[in-house]
């Protein structure tokens, strides 16, 4: 079976020590997970997972209500949720990182991942 290229992008994000979980999601739905599914998430994420999931739904409500959302970051306990909206959609690349992480460096890799996902989507639409 052919690997989902977006899952491969997520797999690479998961290689960063400071990315505890990542996915492509929209309201009430995770559309793409890393190849290993949620089992590839780092174990510390499970202590806040329920809170992260419910707050993400609020975040996606806002994204759906207001056009032009680019990025959104917010803190849940000692973790930070980063949402990078895919252009012209209500779908976002989401990553959860420790609050203490060097966020600037992660931002760059999130932006790179968003661009790659966008390119994959464009290629799929053209095919």
């Amino acid at each position, binding site marked *: 079976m052919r690997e989902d290229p977006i899952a491969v992008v997520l797999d*690479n994000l998961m*290689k*960063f020590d400071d990315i505890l979980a990542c996915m492509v999601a929209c309201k009430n739905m995770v559309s793409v997970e890393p190849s290993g599914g949620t089992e590839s998430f780092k174990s510390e994420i499970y202590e806040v997972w329920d809170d992260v999931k419910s707050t993400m739904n609020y975040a996606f409500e806002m994204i759906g209500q207001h056009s032009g959302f680019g*990025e959104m970051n917010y803190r849940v306990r000692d973790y930070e949720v980063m949402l990078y909206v895919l252009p012209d959609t209500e779908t976002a690349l989401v990553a959860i990182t420790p*609050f*203490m992480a*060097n*966020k*600037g*460096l*992660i*931002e*760059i*890799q*999130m*932006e*790179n991942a968003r661009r790659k996902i966008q390119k994959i989507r464009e290629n799929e639409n053209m095919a």
Partner: protein
Amino acid sequence: MLAASLQQEFIQKIPQKKEEVKLEVGVGFSEKWNAWDAGREVAETAIKKLMQPPDFFLLFSTIHYEKHGGFQEFLNGVWDVLPKGTPLVGGTVAGFINPYGCCAQGATSLAASYPEMDVSVGIGHNTKRDPIAAARTCAKMIKTDLKSSHYSHSFIYEITSGGTIPQFPGLGRKRVVSSGLISRLAPYLTGISLTMLQRGVGREEETLAELVRQFPDYHIIGGSSMDDNNMVENYQFFNTNISKNSIVALGIKTDLKIQVNTTYGLKETDVKLQITKKDRSERIIKEIDNTSALNGFLKKIGWPEDFIDERLYRKTMFIPLGFKKDDMLFPNVIGLFLGKNILVGFKLEKDDLILCSASGKSLLDSVDENLAQFQNQNNHFGLIVSCAARLETLGRNIYVTQEKLLKFFGDKPFLLIYAGGEDTYIPGVGQRHINESFNVATLSS
């Protein structure tokens, strides 16, 4: 096999007429995670753009290959492709920008070939224990090779091992040491850690000063190798070898003109701090305005004491302490809080400090300000060294920096590395090892 086939390709590509020989520069790039694969790709993508074998090869990577095969394997990948004997220097950096991307994970390189250029590389070890001896050893290698060169323009590109967080007994690696006996002993322990274990500040200002003594007529640009801003470990690359706590340098003599320029994008605030006591190394502030350095700093800046925690670096990197010497600003990022003392990245040569601040806009404006100095000349390529703190500050907005560089350089190659500190020297102007700056060197005709 691949190296042999590329060698063959070079032979086939060699122009038949002398006038066709010119400067060729190729920038390499890899985002692969496997060390060997990334090494191979970063070399191949650079040298494929050349008709001639490269005269030198600059190589940079982020720290991630430490855990994905190791740096020796990374270099083995490079040498699987790179023609044997090519002078190579480089090291680990926090991130980089080249014409093909902006990265906080991956590898990049720059290969150049030019007949009107003599090249040498040097290395000196134990920079944290004896930076002057290390710089001298490195300089001697380059001087020996270049002494018979007849070219009038001289250039050094150097990478020095940057600072690491010292390890304290019972506490491990800490940016803030606030408890008990260790906090009182910390200033002394940092000295022991530095000379015995070679963990601590990079002493790059001392290696640079010695390089300038050895090469007073050379333009110099360089930076401090580092990891992903955690300051745990960093590596230097020299030909086929990996080093720690070393300086590596590329020396060039050529007929091309060399120009170096520094800009900051920092605002000098009205907040002034007077150092009233510092230690012998001039890197540990003991008192500010006749009170403990910690209290003096917090009072001036208006922060509560509990603001000082392990996320300190994320806060203080935006407000470096600057001093002025010879009309030049020396911004210095706070590294550690050791009890009531403050440790900074390099020597504070003056006691009058200015609190500096930056915004994303001012940092980006400084790119334009810098590049404006290089207009109206035929730039062949650009080597740029900037501060990892700027990378951390700008985050995804470093793509704006790339856009500016692409607009300026057009189809000419450039390579920007984000380092732990930046070094420049311009004959007749002076030298500076600083933080939070943007430094451009171009070779032009």
